[in-house]
């Protein structure tokens, strides 16, 4: 009796352990499911790689867009500067003569002139003629400096009689004080003396 019970228990256990055709089918299903799952995994990984590729493409597109933005901003700045230049060109300007020197602070202006003078007819010697001509030329150079620095006063008068110009007069005058002018060169040729003279003007001399 005792042995029969043990045998029955063993049989029961063996029946439990023993593979039935149904369980074998389940294992097959599990295997197929596993292969499917692995296939899905590979697909998922491929999709992930595709997504990462799309992400990199998006980032490159974003960098390109930012580059385009910066280009657009520079173009806009250029346009603004051009518009400002056009506005400046359209605005009325003070006329400035070419080569005109202006006296500014810290920069000196050099004025150079050449005065001319002739000797009188009744001189006792060529030396006297030279001396007198040089003096006249110096005076002329001083006058030229005064005219350049201070300017010339000009008056004109025309007399017209019976629809004809009888007399046309132009008067010019200048009055000035000239200091520290330097004689650069003196030449005397065929009775004409030429004195080249220079004067340096600084802003401090005129500052008040």
């Amino acid at each position, binding site marked *: 009796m005792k042995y029969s019970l043990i045998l029955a228990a063993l049989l029961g256990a063996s029946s439990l352990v023993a593979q039935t055709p149904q369980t074998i089918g389940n294992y097959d299903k599990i295997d197929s499911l596993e292969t499917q799952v692995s296939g899905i995994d590979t697909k998922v990984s491929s999709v992930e790689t595709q997504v990462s590729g799309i992400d990199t493409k998006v980032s490159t597109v974003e960098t390109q867009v930012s580059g385009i933005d910066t280009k657009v901003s520079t173009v806009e700045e250029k346009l603004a500067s051009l518009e400002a230049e056009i506005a400046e060109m359209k605005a009325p300007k003070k006329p400035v003569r070419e080569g005109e020197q202006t006296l500014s602070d810290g920069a000196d202006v050099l004025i150079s002139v050449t005065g001319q003078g002739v000797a009188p007819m009744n001189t006792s010697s060529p030396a006297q003629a030279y001396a007198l001509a040089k003096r006249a030329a110096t005076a002329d150079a001083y006058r030229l400096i005064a*005219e350049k620095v201070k300017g010339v006063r000009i008056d004109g008068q025309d007399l017209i009689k019976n629809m004809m110009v009888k007399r046309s007069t132009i008067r010019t005058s200048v009055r000035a004080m000239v200091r520290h002018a330097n*004689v650069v060169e003196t030449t005397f040729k065929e009775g004409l003396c030429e004195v080249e003279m220079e004067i340096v003007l600084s802003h401090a001399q005129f500052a008040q």
Partner: protein
Amino acid sequence: MRSRDGNRSITRAICSIILLSSFASLDAKEFLISYRYMVKDATLYNETLHISDSMKKCTGKPQFALILTSFGDENLKLTIKKNAQEFIDYIHKLGLHVEHQESTTNYQNKSTTILTLKTTCFKVDFNENFAKITPLK
């Protein structure tokens, strides 16, 4: 206690300094100088240089000086005569008043330029062989 002899020597020294300085000041003379010339149609006329002793003490600060050779002579007119060109150049450098008038009538031109050094006081120091001329302004 100070000795009387010591005091005398100090007094002598002070007196001699005063005397020397007074002699030195006597050596410096003051002159009034004016210069003017006219240039008419590029020809010189009426060049005049007036030099006279100053009748009263001049005021003003000395400007840049000119040193002329006087050859031991204490006569300014003679000294200037001997160094005429140098002195005239110096006067030009000091500054001259320029007055110019030009007239063109029926294409015929006439011009007159007058350069003037207004009467200016000059301090003149005569040394052995040189005269130092300084304008006072």
